[in-house]
């Protein structure tokens, strides 16, 4: 007899419908699985055999053929265990399962029949919803991941027998309650609160501007000046993730298998810190099955590269296109995928090889040539993508102890959120998200300068050795500063402040 059940295979962050067709007939005992299964899917035969036996069912003695259709789509992962096991039970008539064809089944089986969480549940369930599926049975650990999805009955199950009981109608499972996204939002706490950062008024201001305009940020400072800590505060002052953003980010993490069992939608923006020995595929995505890289894992969040000049030049070059386009396409022999990669790049670096150029604590003993060489590791085109470049100084220990509590992340976030709303209104027509996305033509149209502002800018350019590339960056940053101050136009004071954030452009550097 034949049984069919629906499942989904991951293609990048999308789920493709796959029918699991099982035919059990008499004859000599044999088990065949066709339809391009990968090793994990192929091995499910042995897991399923054990799970069936230990749940009071049996692998039929005759010929078992399993077809994963469409036949030319590659299938991977252990999520197929449950549909295969259930369809074998149905096809061999060990139980009547009337609800089988209308329910999506996902899950890995252990030999005792327990269901174990799998990766990629959110994208698969989203795809199922699009395909008109109304109910899904999945391992308990995966329940929270889809708890905020509307229009889907989710049945978390613990054991194979629970699933059979549910599908046969003998002992239906209870659907999990839908938790509105806003409820899960209120429960999340920022990883690091800005209130804990002592002093650093200059850097705090730059952080706020970066968050408000979505600008990439480079922090230059002596070792121990708190660059990493400042960067870690950024997710907490960025606007709350919308439901769509949370879904996008969670999907990518789900595909990468990075969600903890029991973890729901990601409500905090991701903060990724790949080590500087990171390879190109690990950074932008790759591997034989085209998994997402760090830049996609940081989608809607922050990608923090500490010690920027230590990264391999080709790794940094590979970042340029995704930073520009907001997505990355990976083609490999076995797979091809497109991942979103709209993140804020935050980088930290020392001012020179020894780290103490311009410091008062310790003398720098780097030659001019050594400093120039160190700085040259970062290519101009990459620097061009970084609107804010600031210097961060170490805070003396006695000041850390003495200073009064600073503003908290929540207070800063309110201003950031307001500034973002202004930008969204202005940029709606151009289909952009934030000031950092503006290019030359949009800038010209939407960001006119007052006469005085224009004069200050020209004088700064000629006086302070600012490159023409730096010019447009300054206007973008000035626009964000104006948004923070709720000023409709860009005034001279906004331009003047924006000029301060071009540390690497200034003439003094290395001179």
């Amino acid at each position, binding site marked *: 007899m034949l049984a069919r059940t629906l499942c989904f295979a991951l293609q990048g962050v999308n789920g493709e419908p796959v029918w699991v067709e099982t035919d059990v007939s008499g004859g000599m005992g044999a088990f065949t699985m066709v339809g391009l299964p990968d090793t994990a899917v192929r091995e499910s035969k042995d897991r399923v055999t054990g799970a069936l036996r230990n749940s009071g069912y049996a692998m039929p003695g005759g010929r078992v053929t399993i077809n994963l259709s469409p036949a030319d789509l590659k299938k991977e992962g252990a999520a197929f265990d449950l549909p295969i096991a259930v369809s074998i039970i149905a096809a061999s008539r060990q139980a009547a399962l009337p609800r089988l064809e209308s329910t999506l089944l996902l899950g890995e089986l252990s030999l005792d029949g327990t269901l174990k969480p799998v990766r990629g549940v959110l994208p698969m369930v989203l795809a199922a919803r699009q395909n008109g599926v109304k109910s899904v049975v999945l391992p308990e650990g995966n329940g929270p991941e889809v708890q905020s999805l509307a229009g889907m009955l989710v049945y978390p199950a613990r054991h194979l027998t629970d699933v059979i009981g549910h599908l046969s109608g003998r002992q239906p499972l209870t659907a999990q309650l839908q938790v509105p996204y806003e409820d899960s939002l209120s429960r999340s706490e920022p990883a690091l609160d800005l209130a804990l950062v002592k*002093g*650093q*008024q*200059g850097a*705090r*201001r*730059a952080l706020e501007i970066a968050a408000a305009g979505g600008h990439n940020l480079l922090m230059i400072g002596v070792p121990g000046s708190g660059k990493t800590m400042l960067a870690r505060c950024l997710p907490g002052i960025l606007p709350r993730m919308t439901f769509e953003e949370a879904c996008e980010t969670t999907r990518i993490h789900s595909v990468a298998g990075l969600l903890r069992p029991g973890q729901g939608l990601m409500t905090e923006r991701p903060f990724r810190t790949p080590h500087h020995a990171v390879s190109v595929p690990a950074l932008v995505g790759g591997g034989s099955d085209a998994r997402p890289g760090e830049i996609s894992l940081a989608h809607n969040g922050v990608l923090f590269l500490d010690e920027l000049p230590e990264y391999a030049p080709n790794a940094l070059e590979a970042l340029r296109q995704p930073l520009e386009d907001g997505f990355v396409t990976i083609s490999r022999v076995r797979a091809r995928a497109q991942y979103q990669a709209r993140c804020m790049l935050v980088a930290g670096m020392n*001012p020179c090889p020894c780290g103490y*150029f*311009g*410091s*008062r604590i310790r*003398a720098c*003993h780097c*030659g*001019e*040539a050594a400093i120039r060489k160190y700085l040259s590791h970062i290519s101009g085109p990459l620097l061009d993508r970084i609107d804010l470049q*600031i*210097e*961060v*100084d170490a*805070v003396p220990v006695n000041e850390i102890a003495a200073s009064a509590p600073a503003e908290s992340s929540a207070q800063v976030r309110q201003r950031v959120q307001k500034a973002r709303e202004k930008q969204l209104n202005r940029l709606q027509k151009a289909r952009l998200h934030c000031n950092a996305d503006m290019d030359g033509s949009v800038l010209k149209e939407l960001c006119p300068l007052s006469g005085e502002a224009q004069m*200050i800018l020209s*004088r*700064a350019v000629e*006086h*302070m050795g600012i490159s023409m590339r730096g010019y447009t960056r300054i206007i973008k940053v000035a626009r964000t*500063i104006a948004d923070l101050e709720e000023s409709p136009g860009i005034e001279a*004071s*906004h*331009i*003047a*402040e924006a*000029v*301060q*954030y071009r*540390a690497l452009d*200034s003439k*003094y*550097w290395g001179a």
Partner: protein
Amino acid sequence: MAYTKEQLARIWLQCAPMAAWTRLRAWQEQLGGPEQMWDLFSPDFHALLGDDVYASLADSREESCRTILRQLEALGARPLFLGDPDYPEMLSHVDKPPDVLFCRGDLPPQGTPAVAIVGSRASTRYGSSNARRIARELAEMGVTVVSGLARGIDAAAHNGALDGGGRTIAVLGCGVGRIYPSENRELYQHILDGGGAIVSELAPDAEPLPYHFPVRNRIISGLSDAVLLIEARMKSGTHTTIDDALRQGREVFALPGNVDAPGSELPLMLLRDGARICTCARDLIGDMGWQEKQPAQETFLDAPRPAEEADPILRALALEEKTLEELIAETGLSAGELGTKLTLLEINGKIERRAGRAYALRR
């Protein structure tokens, strides 16, 4: 240019590796002079001089120094012989003057006052900027600035002299046909373009070997009437220049530095031991008893301090540079407001920004 046989012999000996100079000088004295050395040179010297020295002398003698002369000609350099009228007179009076000095460009006329400015290669901003300023002031007064084309203070001194439109002499620790360190390639050319000179006592293609530099230091002080030390650690190559200067009877000046800066060790020790203090070119010119060619412009110590201190930022910066955080603490302005004001002050030429997000009054 045609050379006499004696001159050829002197060039020939001068171009031998530095390690053999002492032995060669002893042999010259035994044999009666360079010419005799040239004539009597034979494979017998092999054992006396060692492989490399013998080979290099034998090669260049074989072809009558043609390679060396060709190199000199290609560079536009010429040899100056000790005792000739165009040999720098100051140098001819020191202990062990170079017998032949190779020179690119033009040395200033005999009797032009010259000051050597020396100091650490790992200079601080304080050292470099003051070396450059004083060199400029000296050049404006018609004083030649002598230094060693090294990075740090040396490069700042040469650059300063060029800023002031003056001549400057670079004494190399390698041949005049080499540029070391290579980052000073442009500077090398600017010195020549500015009517200055590049000199060395080594063969035109000699490499910059570590032991060349202490030996060349005696030429730096030897070409100068006074030596100004800017910044150096106690144990440094610069120390040998000061020792040479004292032996040669040159006046030693030092720029005072912060007592807690490592680069102040040597200058402060010299000042304690009786070196003269130099904060601007006028200090030096006055002490040396030279006539000023033109009145010195506003100098460092007695620059008027205008009563502009109504601006809280300028008031905070009156005595020393401050970082952004210090300015925030002192003026009570927010980071944003301060950023705006600082840019305006900077483009109006009142302050300058320095590494480490520090700001200082512009002088």
